[in-house]
């Protein structure tokens, strides 16, 4: 179990990170520059927070009040760097051997790890001669050889093309499923978080939001930034009106079928939740078709609600190519959003 409660100032940027993780894979989800990497580096002991407390399996790693600041060597926290940080002057076997704690059993440990990670054929090669997958396996083997109590993954696939990423993600999640401790998985990719973690901590401009399940994040993100990270594309300022919201820029009132909290400032509508209205459906409104974008597997339609102000943002709708084909010729369409699909969001 990992408990983090730290503050760190970097120039004008203020990081306030507060969350705890059980022995689970917890996703740290945030746009780039939101402080995810800094948080990981503080946990590993590479950076020092200005103040706060970090605790792993009841051992205090950092506490500004008690003046505790263990060096990285004594924290037992494995760190998978974006570019893997393999030692370029050492072979695969030497890289793994360097991390072995028990020097007398080093040979046996290295042999076992080479076998386990399918690295026997490249054991005497240097990192520069390895494929991306082999580099990642070497880095993981090296980390696990050091017997960490927690593993931190810093955007493990950020530099890879999508097919290789898919392959490595499979391998990585398989390896980590056998790991008993805490795994922090830093990413800006909601799909990656969804596939590999059950719970998530959203970070936005230096602030960590409460840990929640990924289901909860997608169902009710709570804040605009979390909704953005969960893939929502339409955001409109709203005034709450009992059980509905008024969107001034579109001159539109949408029913929500639940009491709208007074702090609601923005409504979010996912592009694929906008659909052609059935007869007598609630929340139906007419829109002019402003632009049609032909995507790989679907169509993206940008709509202008009929009562919208001249400079109001357009409504983005995504649907199957076939579903759009039936409406292709129309200049005005009638669409609807189900009340429960309207995300009620705070500003940040």
């Amino acid at each position, binding site marked *: 179990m990992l408990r983090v409660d730290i503050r760190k100032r970097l120039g004008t940027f203020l990081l306030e990170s507060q969350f705890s993780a059980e022995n689970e894979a917890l996703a740290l989800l945030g746009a780039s520059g939101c402080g995810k990497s800094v948080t990981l580096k503080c946990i590993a002991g590479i950076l020092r927070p200005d103040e706060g407390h970090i605790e792993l399996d009841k051992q205090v790693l950092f506490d500004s009040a008690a003046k505790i600041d263990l060096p990285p*060597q*004594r924290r037992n926290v*494995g*760190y998978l*760097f974006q*570019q893997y940080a393999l*030692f*370029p*002057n050492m072979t695969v076997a030497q890289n793994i051997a*360097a991390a072995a704690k028990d020097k007398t059993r080093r040979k046996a440990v290295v042999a076992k790890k080479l076998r386990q990670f399918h690295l026997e054929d490249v054991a005497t090669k240097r990192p520069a001669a390895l494929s991306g997958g082999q580099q990642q396996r070497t880095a993981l083997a090296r980390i696990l050889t050091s017997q960490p109590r927690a593993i931190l993954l810093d955007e493990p696939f950020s530099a890879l093309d999508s097919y290789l990423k898919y392959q490595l993600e499979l391998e990585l999640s398989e390896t980590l499923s056998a790991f008993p401790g805490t795994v922090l998985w830093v990413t800006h990719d909601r799909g990656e978080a969804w596939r590999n973690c059950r719970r998530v901590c959203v970070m936005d401009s230096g602030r960590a939001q409460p840990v929640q399940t990924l289901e909860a994040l997608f169902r009710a993100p709570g804040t605009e930034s979390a909704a953005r990270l969960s893939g929502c594309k339409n955001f409109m300022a709203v005034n709450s009106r009992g059980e509905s919201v008024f969107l001034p820029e579109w001159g539109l009132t949408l029913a929500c079928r639940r009491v709208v909290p007074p702090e609601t400032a923005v409504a979010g509508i996912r592009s694929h939740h906008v659909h052609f209205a059935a007869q007598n459906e609630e929340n139906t409104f007419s829109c002019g078709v402003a632009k049609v974008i032909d995507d790989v597997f679907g169509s993206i339609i940008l709509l202008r609600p009929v009562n919208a102000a001249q400079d109001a943002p357009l409504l983005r709708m995504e649907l199957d190519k076939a579903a759009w084909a039936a409406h292709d010729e129309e200049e005005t369409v009638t669409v609807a959003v189900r009340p429960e699909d309207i995300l009620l969001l705070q500003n940040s």
Partner: protein
Amino acid sequence: MDWYPLYNSLRISAVSTVAVFFLGLLSAYYIARLPRLAKGILDVVLTLPLVLPPTVVGYLLLRLLGPNRVVGSWFLAHFGTKLVMTWWSAIFATVVVAFPLMYRTARGAFESFDETLADAGRTLGLSNTYIFWRVRMPYCKQGILAGTVLAFARALGEYGATSMIAGYTPGRTATISTTVYQLWRTGDDAGATRWVLVNLAISAVVLLVVNLLESRQRGGRR
């Protein structure tokens, strides 16, 4: 031909190169971690001997190590030996003038080092000493080797400060450079030419080695 000046020059250069190697590396490593102001000041002080005339370095060393000066008189009182006018006195001079070359090149090499490698090493539980010698040094190998060779060459060619602190005594403190000067001054053109040729040969080899290291660094990095 009396080969003593070659032997003396080589041992002075060898000893001072070893000293400069460690001093330069450690200063480069630790000074890079200091706050900016301290770094700037130390940088100027440590690089100064590179741009000062060697006679000024020699003068300052004599002010410090001469038998009537602070360090020199203390050493004489405790060990019964003068610090100047022996064969190894030249080492003080060569260390001071060769140090900036090693310090500068090592710092340049360390600056190109990918610090995440050191971070990775620390999170794996490796000691800072291990990381320095087994990760950082191999990574910066070519730059550091080039710095070492340059420092050796500078020590071998040292004249001004050496002649002031060690003087010229044939068979005792004579080095190649002081010998060339003495032979020319006494009109022994043939003798001077021989030593000039020896010096040219050594310098050519040193430059070849430096060029070789630099081309390997350009082509061989990852």
